[in-house]
């Protein structure tokens, strides 16, 4: 039955045309409160979009759709992407919509645009995302909010006075957005610390991942890999979280910040966790025909995508483990195994996220009981993971990370295919708040 479904799913997709990645553009990512301290989501996303337009000569072009979003979003930004389109030199006839899937926003936007292209609904589109922690919206307390709403709804001045009188001094304290999971009250770092403890991931292994991320990203910048993927913004030309000169010694000297109340030793530090970051990214996608008719390059095609979600509320699974479930399904549906993948882009929410993902895939019991496989899912060749660095070094402006990774992965497979003459594939895996995960495969063309 499963085989038949697989065959049928594969057969169905044969009639679907390819969606290809033409290129990407982002602003350098900046640590919160620094260069982009007063830049809004719309300003950053418009800058990233305008850089994309300039790079591919899209001035006045009517694209099929622009899709993106922000995780920390003010209610005034309800049409963030549409407003950014109107502020860009794209044709104002380019439709747009906002979506949001926490840290998977950018990848989910890419999947949406690619699917519309594959279905023939649009010929071209932009996917992306923007996030700012520096310029985050601040909310009023629930008590003040309810009182103010009641004042608005009140018809008489007595009723207004009564509503205002209900405000208590404690209600005046502003609510700053937090990364706590609403259902558990635990921050994402605390959740991952629990998963880290459950899998027994060592501090040293996490620091090695962090070091590799910085070294790889620094090398990629040095080699010019990002020259056609990034446009300077507000005087910043490179990701300012990058520490090319960091070392295992420096990373080892940092004090743990998450998991300090657990029985297991705390291992997660500011060095092996992503910092709060501001930034925006975009990816340009189209049909092959559209790219060809516009004389645009083609880096890769979007093969397929799979999302997953896990029950972390009842402690069944770790908050950031959803991609672990999505990837086996994604690969199986496409007749692929881990050995068919040349590049693994595993979003480094924390260094230990990468390590718990790998550990779960290598565990036979987990493979059987959680993934429904005959045994362990498999082992990933460590040299294929995040070869040009990832979020630990670049930073992680939540909704902007997906676009950064898609553009990087597409360019990596294009380069590899050009070098070897063989097709190359990249697997993208992004974990997200709410026990969510989005994954995708891109392949050279």
């Amino acid at each position: 039955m499963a085989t038949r479904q697989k065959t049928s799913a594969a057969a169905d997709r044969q009639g679907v045309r390819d969606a290809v990645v033409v290129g990407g553009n982002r602003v350098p990512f900046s640590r919160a409160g620094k260069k982009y301290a007063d830049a809004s989501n719309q300003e950053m996303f418009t800058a990233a979009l305008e850089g994309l337009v300039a790079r591919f000569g899209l001035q006045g072009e009517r694209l099929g759709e622009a899709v993106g979003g922000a995780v920390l979003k003010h209610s005034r930004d309800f049409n963030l992407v549409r407003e950014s389109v109107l502020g860009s030199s794209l044709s104002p006839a380019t439709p747009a919509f906002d979506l949001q899937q926490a840290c998977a926003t950018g990848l989910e936007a890419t999947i949406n645009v690619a699917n519309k292209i594959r279905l023939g609904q649009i010929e071209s589109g932009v996917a992306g995302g923007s996030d700012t922690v520096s310029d985050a919206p601040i909310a009023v307390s629930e008590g003040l909010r309810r009182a103010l709403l009641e004042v608005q709804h009140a018809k008489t001045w007595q009723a207004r006075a009564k509503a205002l009188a209900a405000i208590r001094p404690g209600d005046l304290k502003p609510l700053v957005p937090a990364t706590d999971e609403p259902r558990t009250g635990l921050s994402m770092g605390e959740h991952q610390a629990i998963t880290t403890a459950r899998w027994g991931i060592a501090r040293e292994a996490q620091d090695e991942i962090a070091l590799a991320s910085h070294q790889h990203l620094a090398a990629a910048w040095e080699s010019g890999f990002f020259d056609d993927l990034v446009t300077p913004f507000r005087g910043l030309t490179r990701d300012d979280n990058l520490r090319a000169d960091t070392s295992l010694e420096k990373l080892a000297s940092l004090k743990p910040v998450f998991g300090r109340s657990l029985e297991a030793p705390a291992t997660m530090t500011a060095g092996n966790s992503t910092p709060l970051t501001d930034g925006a990214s975009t990816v340009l996608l189209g049909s092959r025909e559209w790219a060809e008719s516009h004389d645009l390059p083609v880096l890769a095609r979007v093969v397929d995508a799979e999302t997953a979600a896990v029950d972390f509320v009842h402690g069944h699974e770790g908050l950031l483990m959803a991609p672990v479930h999505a990837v086996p399904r994604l690969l199986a549906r496409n007749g692929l195994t881990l050995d068919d993948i040349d590049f693994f882009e595993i979003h480094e929410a924390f260094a230990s996220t990468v390590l718990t993902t790998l550990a779960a895939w290598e565990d036979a019991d987990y493979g059987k009981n959680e993934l429904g496989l005959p045994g362990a899912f498999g082992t990933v060749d460590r040299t294929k993971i995040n070869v040009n660095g990832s979020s630990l070094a670049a930073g992680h402006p939540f909704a902007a990370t997906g676009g950064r990774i898609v553009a990087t992965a597409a360019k990596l497979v294009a380069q590899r295919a050009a070098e070897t003459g063989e097709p190359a594939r990249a697997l993208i895996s992004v974990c997200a708040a709410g026990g969510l995960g989005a994954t995708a495969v891109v392949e050279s063309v």
Partner: protein
Amino acid sequence: MTAEPLRTTDGAALRVETQPSLPGLGGLYARGAAASGRIAAGRALPSLPIIGTGRTASDRPADHAAGGDLLTLPDVAYRVPGVTTADLARHLHEYQRLLHEPVGDVLPAGYLHVLVFPLATAVMVRGDFPLPLLGMVHLRNVVELRGPVRLGDVLEVRAWAENLRAHRRGVQVDLVTEIRPDDAKGNPDPLWRGVSTYLAKGFELPGSRSSTSGAGEVPRGYDSATAGTTSRGETWLPPLPTGRWALGPGTGRAYGAVSGDRNPIHLSALSAKAFGFPRAIAHGMYTAARALADVGHVRGDAYRWTVEFAKPVLLPGTVDMAITPETDGFAYVGWNARRHRQHFSGAVTPL
């Protein structure tokens, strides 16, 4: 009404007194405080026979065997028919928001406890109830909900006290409350049944001194001397948490406002100090109901919900908690991560 014979769990007959409506809690606390004062006065002045309905162990010599009926429970069950819920929407939704329950028209088991708690309290403030309301410690609570109760349902509520028995540190008693649909079908089985066990410290059952050790009656970690250890004396190792509650200083006041349970130990540090607590403490049922809400929809419409209270949660405070899937439901435990002490533990089991 048809005066069907009503009996306690161990078969003692109860006189049913039908009340016109559920009492308000505010007045009951005033009466409870007065009664507590009377009982306290009785403890201080044991020679006054009319008010000496309770005795502390120190008041009497160990061989004082007389007056075996000094501590007896009222043989009365309160019954209130025709309890309407149609006008409770706003109150229900306030409760649901406070306890992190999904907002809707189904009354969670914890809300039903809030609804019937005044009737149980009315039993406890009767002149012939032998223990003081104020100062009693909520040890455990067991609730069985057999099916959904919805806004608009008309209910019949019953409450009585039973099973007065010894506890290592005093006397414990069960307050039983039952809810049935008031639909003239004479439903023999309740839709909701709650058993709240309270401890009155320092009291003693006549002739039961030797049997008051009852280790099994003591929730794990209840006694400060054994807190942080299991009943076998092993150090308790907290599991990996699945959640963390940051409880602000107003937690007790907020639940007090919604539940009507404005026991002074929950309201402010000052009023709690009068009862020997360093700061205000969270309502036990607030913590149990938060845990029930954390278990969420998987509990279904019919479930058994239990809680054993250990060390009280001082406010403001942080409670680490873990929900663990079991074969037939979920176990939960809440603790103080810094002190390795359990606050409460329990289970939610679909029925």
